[in-house]
């Protein structure tokens, strides 16, 4: 990113500096809240201790990495974004920023995040962060998203990295627990997103992105929502089953997963009526957000209680 990053936005065609807020918008701050939350949970739930300054740095590095890959995603998809109502006012399709500035900013943020993680925390966590960035920006955004209707499943993998990296930043080793945290978000993403895709009209078809409900149709999408929910349940309960957590997490996971299945079942079975409020799909989508936050909060509560000696 050149320091005189400009875009021609005045009526007379005079170059005007890009607003700093537009650079911030490129990092997808709303997506970042979930990244930060799950990364914090990974750091807090991991066994062992980390100095608060280093814990903060690990979460900062993960957030910067997520931001950097989001910027690269927006850079690559500027033309796609320009064709959709929801995204046409983003900084690049809106003409408020030069493309090369977005690309350079994304590379810069990504590189700094990995270097920060490596220097301050360790190179295993840094390597995983680099992998997560490449996975999202290259494998997902550039390669598979425009090619397969399973793009949401693949994209879910990118969102699944933060708690795993947070955990490994503390422990310095890859064990079953961080892999399970990864798997929980990986399996949670398809029912979460496809429930939304069923009741929100999107322009993806117009811009040539093969989303499952559009390409395969409603029925297969509903069936896959159910199967991923069913797959999610044992994975969500597994941390307790393998002895990685106590009953606090275990009971929460069992209850929440039962509710998730209870809400996903009608979504998986029914078909849209001619006049349809899509209530089951809306309920499932809303619940899926609470599900993930509550599950990770329960994990942190469980582990903190165990490390403090409040429970056996």
């Amino acid at each position: 990113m050149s320091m005189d990053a400009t875009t021609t936005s005045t009526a007379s065609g005079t170059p005007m500096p890009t607003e700093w807020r537009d650079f911030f918008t490129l990092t997808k701050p709303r997506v970042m809240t979930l990244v930060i939350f799950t990364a914090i949970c990974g750091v807090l739930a991991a066994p062992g201790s980390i100095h608060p300054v280093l814990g903060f740095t690990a979460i900062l590095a993960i957030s910067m990495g997520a931001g950097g890959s989001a910027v690269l995603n927006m850079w690559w998809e500027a033309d796609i974004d320009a064709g959709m109502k929801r995204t046409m006012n983003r900084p690049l399709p809106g003409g408020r920023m030069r493309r090369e500035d977005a690309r350079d900013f994304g590379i810069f943020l990504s590189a700094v995040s990995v270097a920060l993680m490596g220097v301050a925390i360790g190179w295993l966590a840094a390597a995983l962060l680099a992998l997560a960035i490449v996975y999202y920006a290259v494998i997902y955004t550039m390669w598979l998203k425009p090619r397969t209707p399973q793009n949401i499943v693949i994209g879910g993998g990118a969102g699944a990295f933060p708690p795993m990296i947070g955990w490994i930043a503390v422990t310095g080793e890859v064990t079953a627990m961080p892999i399970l945290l990864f798997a929980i978000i990986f399996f949670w993403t398809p029912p979460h997103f496809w429930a939304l895709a069923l009741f929100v009209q999107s322009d993806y078809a117009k811009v040539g992105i093969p989303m499952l409900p559009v390409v395969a149709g409603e029925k297969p999408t509903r069936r896959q929502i159910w199967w991923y929910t069913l797959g999610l349940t044992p994975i969500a309960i597994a941390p307790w089953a393998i002895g990685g957590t106590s009953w606090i997490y275990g009971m929460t996971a069992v209850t929440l997963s039962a509710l998730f299945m209870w809400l996903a079942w009608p979504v998986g079975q029914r078909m849209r009526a001619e006049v349809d409020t899509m209530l089951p799909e809306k309920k499932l989508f809303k619940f899926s957000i609470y599900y993930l936050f509550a599950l990770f909060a329960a994990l942190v509560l469980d582990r903190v209680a165990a490390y403090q000696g409040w429970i056996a």
Partner: protein
Amino acid sequence: MTPEEQAEFTRRRKARNYVVAGTLLFFVVLFYAITIVRMGD
């Protein structure tokens, strides 16, 4: 450039300079803290 455009130009550049300065300052403090913590390990 009209006077309005000139004012807008200056405002944007100034705002961005403040953000860059703040970010740099933040990282100076952060790296100082990281160094102190790591030296104590």
